[in-house]
């Protein structure tokens, strides 16, 4: 069975985006997106777990008895999350302290369980790897987008504290958009995350609708063009 990678890409990034359409993994999405660096690191961590779990589940899919498949998935995911947590503790300790409880909570992220059950358990290893990557990417993009909106509105900066993730060289990446910004606490507090995500979903639906309308208009046009020459024939 040939895998349609193009469709997987479109699904993961847009049509079936885990955060905007499936609305999965909202707990970390809403909790850690107060700044770009937090959002990006949690996104990458979730993506790595997703790739790993999809890989492992699809590798063993013929040996896992379906009656106990969920406990087995949970164990696989938990093992991967523990490794990620230990790796973050070793490599980016400050970030590990900031993200705190939300790293172990990746275990409960429904996206990972959902993809293991819905995709990896039925498809080949390479296709599952790609699906994990693209779903993780779709999730990370939304996280970073929301993080950027909230950081700009809340603190007036962008890419602050990136050195926590990329080392001291990234310290100069910080962009101060507004000098003397008073700070808009609402955007940083949890309600800001809800409103921000709601607006992002609204923008996505609006884009979908306008694309749909344009497609329909385009499909109608050739018909009228075809009819016209017929009419002009004497």
């Amino acid at each position, binding site marked *: 069975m040939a895998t349609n990678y193009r469709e997987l890409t479109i699904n993961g990034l847009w049509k079936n985006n885990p955060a905007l359409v499936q609305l999965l993994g909202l707990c970390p999405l809403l909790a850690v997106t107060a700044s770009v660096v937090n959002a990006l690191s949690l996104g990458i961590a979730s993506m790595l777990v997703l790739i790993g779990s999809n890989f492992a589940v699809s590798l063993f899919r013929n040996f896992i008895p379906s009656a106990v498949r969920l406990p087995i998935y949970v164990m696989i995911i938990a093992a991967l999350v523990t490794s990620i947590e230990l790796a973050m503790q070793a490599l980016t300790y400050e970030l590990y302290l900031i993200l705190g409880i939300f790293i172990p909570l990746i275990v409960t992220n429904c996206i990972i369980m959902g993809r293991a059950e819905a995709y990896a358990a039925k498809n080949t290893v390479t296709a599952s790897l790609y699906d994990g990557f693209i779903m993780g990417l779709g999730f990370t993009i939304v996280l970073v987008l929301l993080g950027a909106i909230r950081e700009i509105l809340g603190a007036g900066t962008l890419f602050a504290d990136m050195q926590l993730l990329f080392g001291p060289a990234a310290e100069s990446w910080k962009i101060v958009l507004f000098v003397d910004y008073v700070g808009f*606490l609402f955007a940083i507090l949890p309600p800001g995350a809800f409103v921000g995500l709601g607006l992002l979903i609204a923008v996505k639906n609006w884009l979908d609708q306008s694309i749909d309308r344009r497609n329909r208009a385009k499909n109608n046009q050739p018909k009228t063009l075809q009819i016209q020459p017929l009419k002009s024939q004497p």
Partner: protein
Amino acid sequence: MALINISSPHVQRPTRTADIMRLVIIATIPGLIAMTFFFGWGTLINVLLASLIALTCEAACLKARKRPLMFFLKDNSALLTAILLGLSLPPFAPWWVTGCAVFVAIVIAKHLYGGLGQNPFNPAMVGYALVLISFPIEMTRWTSPFELSGNSWDLLSFVDTFKIIFAGWSETLASNSYIDGYSGATPLDILKHRNGLTNEEVWQSSSVLANVGAWYAVSLAYFVGGIFLIYRKIFTWHAPITLLFTLTLISAIFFAIDPDTYADPLIHLTTGATMLGAFFIVTDPVSSATSNKGKIIFAAGIAILIYIVRTWGSYPDAMAFAVMLMNLSAPFIDQYTQPRSYGHARANKGLSSKGRS
């Protein structure tokens, strides 16, 4: 509401939304005069600025939603939201605080939910709550009433107030330092952050509480406006009177138990947002409960929440939070307080197992 079709007798002309809103706006005038009289030009500037922004936002939203522009602009509802916000914000609130509150009230709390009649929350209170949690410093800088400076007519001049609102507090302060004497806390603030003093000691030591009469007068002005609206039958007495009664009852009980730590009922009734809220916010026909019984439960809930937050919470006043929480439960209250309709044996309330017919 005026939009409901009324069955016979068809004697009266049904009141239009625009007329109701205009009467409510007229009823805020005594409060506006009192605020300007005691706290300076700031409130008047805020109200005008808020109205301007509100009408602009409303027009932009209507245009984006492809609705008839003049029909909705003329219903005065955006204007009323702006006036209520202008009255509740601190008189020295910077222009961007007012702008932010009005923008959120009109665009997010009203039009994103579907416009007038569809909003589950009171727009003015959403705007107020948002700026209150976002800009705590600007929102707690209240003005002292004019008597504080000793001379009976020593108000901050119109130009200076204008400068503070549009140029910022620190810039204006740098050029004329005497302005700092015009800022102060509110009575509820003083009574909350009392550093372990008893009621009597706070009353003796605080200069703000020595001028508490200004707040009494403003509340009285709102009360007069509210009574006018009840007289004109814009809303029934149920919500405002229940709110005032419940608040008095709870505060009286706690005051009787321990008169040293709990503020007396008069303070709860006449300072803060009690009167403005009771007559102009709680009576909002869109976001409050519908039936008379429902209104009583709705208002009592607000009064209880106000007392809880004022006494044990971290904010000195709680009108916005209390109203929004009870707005959220208004559909639930409506579900259980439907009155019996004519021709039916029993009221159709709650979730019946037979389904709704």
